């Protein structure tokens, strides 16, 4: 996701003996433009009457786009902070201010960056005019965004999506739909614009298109050898997160898809001599993105798919644009039962002919990690493939102990060899 890392990624790719993507150049251009526009918002936002919103990764941005609101993602900036090794100092700022070390490292480093922008890469985030939080990804965002709302003294709009123990019920859908309608009224007040249904429909159309491009690109990884490895997926997911509903995003994924398709045609794998196919579960380990995944790549193990970046490949639900938003954003996988998530992993293992899976027990992300052990056992039982659990953190390198991790990874990969 942090595009500024992509040049580094390509350099590493050469050294690490896996194949760099040509599309990385286009990714840098697309994302570079997005960051420039975002970070200079103070110059163009007011004249164009286009407020800047800080939003959670699971917020219904298509609705915001219909109001010409520009969105920036604290979670995405936090991933960049981490890849650029700034997380520890930013977290320390937040911890000194009284935030617990047990709090999510995205939240801590974001708050640290708000308090000390001089320590944050890219000069921190540009100041928001409003905040939009949706609790479909976790409950932390509610308190985190309340802190931000008090700090910046700007409106906070919350979308409450009930946790789905089974399928989405009509009541839950109605509940979210009503909130979306109320949010639209709030946004009309904030922006001074009327909701343009046609524009919303257009945003939804483009969002659906970018989603299906991302989905198709990922499906090419069912090929053997897989044309992409996990670090590719993590880096090239940036536009699907921040440019959902945009034409630039669509243009970018068309390029990426073409390249990936070509790789499959030529039988080119992301990892040289792919011999072990794995599925990844949980957010990337950003501060160790290269060194960690290298432990696998150097043994011919490729992560052919994952549940994390796959979260952005879910089809849009049917109905009017507002109905579709209500259902799509409530049905995100992190808002669903352990059974649902286990089945998702089981299907990925079957569809991608994976030999095993690796779960990142992510100290920061409780909703993602808490039920992993239950899921791990169910998936192992039903697929017969082994699953490894690694303890780390998506952004805070202090939670990563290199030697124990190396030990577990080696032991896990040895189970695929005929050693015992």
């Amino acid at each position, binding site marked *: 996701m942090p595009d500024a890392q992509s040049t580094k990624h390509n350099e590493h790719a050469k050294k690490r003996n896996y194949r760099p993507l040509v599309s990385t150049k286009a990714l840098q251009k697309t994302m570079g433009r997005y960051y420039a526009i975002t970070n200079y918002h103070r110059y163009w936002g007011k004249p164009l009457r286009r407020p800047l919103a800080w939003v959670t990764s699971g917020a219904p941005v298509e609705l915001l786009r219909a109001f010409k609101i520009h969105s920036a993602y604290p979670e995405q900036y936090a991933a960049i902070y981490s890849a650029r090794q700034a997380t520890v100092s930013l977290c320390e700022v937040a911890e000194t201010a009284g935030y617990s070390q047990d709090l999510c490292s995205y939240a801590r480093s974001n708050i640290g960056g708000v308090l000390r922008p001089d320590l944050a890469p890219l000069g921190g985030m540009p100041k928001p005019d409003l905040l939009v939080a949706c609790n479909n990804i976790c409950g932390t965002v509610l308190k985190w965004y309340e802190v931000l709302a008090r700090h910046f003294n700007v409106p906070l709009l919350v979308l409450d999506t009930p946790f789905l123990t089974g399928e989405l019920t009509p009541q839950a859908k109605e509940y979210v739909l009503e909130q979306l309608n109320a949010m639209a009224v709030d946004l009309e007040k904030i922006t001074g614009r009327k909701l343009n249904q046609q524009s919303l429909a257009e945003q939804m159309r483009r969002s659906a298109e970018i989603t299906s491009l991302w989905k198709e690109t990922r499906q090419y990884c069912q090929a053997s050898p897989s044309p992409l490895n996990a670090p590719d997926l993590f880096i090239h997911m940036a536009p699907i997160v921040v440019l959902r509903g945009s034409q630039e995003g669509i243009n970018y994924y068309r390029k990426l898809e073409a390249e990936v398709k070509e790789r499959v045609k030529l039988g080119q794998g992301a990892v040289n001599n792919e011999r072990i196919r794995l599925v990844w579960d949980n957010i990337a380990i950003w501060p160790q993105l290269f060194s960690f995944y290298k432990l696998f790549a150097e043994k011919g193990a490729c992560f052919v798919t994952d549940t994390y970046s796959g979260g952005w490949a879910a089809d849009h639900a049917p109905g009017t644009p507002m109905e579709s938003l209500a259902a799509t954003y409530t049905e995100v996988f992190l808002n669903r039962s352990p059974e649902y998530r286990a089945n998702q992993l089981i299907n990925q293992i079957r569809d991608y002919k994976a030999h095993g899976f690796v779960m990142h027990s992510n100290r920061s992300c409780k909703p993602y990690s808490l039920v992993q052990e239950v899921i791990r*056992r169910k998936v192992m039982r039903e697929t017969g493939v082994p699953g490894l*659990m690694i303890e780390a953190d998506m952004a805070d390198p202090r939670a990563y102990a290199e030697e*124990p991790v190396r030990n577990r990874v080696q032991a896990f990969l040895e189970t695929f060899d005929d050693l015992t």
Partner: protein
Amino acid sequence: MQSYFIGVDIGSLTVKVVLLNNHLEIIGQMKTRAGYSGRDVANRLKEQLLTESGLKEQDVRSTVATGYGRVTFPADREVSEITCQAKGIHHLFPTARTVIDIGGQDSKVIKLLSNGKVADFAMNDKCAAGTGRFLEVMASALEVEWQEIGEIVSSSKNPTKISSFCTVFAESEVISQVSAGTPKSDILAGVCDSVANRVASMTRKIGLEPDIVFTGGVAHNQGVVNALAKQLGYPLLVSQEPVITAALGAALLAREMNKV
């Protein structure tokens, strides 16, 4: 012609070396404290073993290294302790399905298939609670040698509860028990229970299946053996030399690598 194989296990606390011949007979074995340079200690033990057995370096067909210092040792191959432990235990106890290994700074549980392959494993993470180091710290707080723990515990009538999961805080709990005049045997029994609790929950996590083998340095400690057996509700099999089973596994792997 007879050929020989060496397994080296450089652990956090001790170094173990096993010398094996191609009839799977253990020709010799040695262990000692790792100290600062596990690699040098391992080399010394290896030379000693060879001299005592009247062998030369050239008689050794291959060497496999395992343990934390495995990458530092010039072996033909380095293999993780999980795989080596599984290999060693399956060789000694073919009916073993669960291996509990408590070493100096690791505790781990390995689930084995009937063919000895690793089906699953779990390890402690970033914490010394439930390891040999934990027992050492507690023993030193009570001024007893860790080898004596088993015997002292056997006279305990009313084991104390050591509630903390953290080695540092558990030590202060022990010290406050000492000040309160609690008998040493009861405090130590509490310490053994606390290790057993920790490891038993890890065992249940990956699924308990008999036969259960307990190995690693802590398997020498009868206090923990009894506490763990009670916790799990199964008898535990312990080899005569529980410290060297991973080194034995490494030597067995060295031999397999050279099967013609």
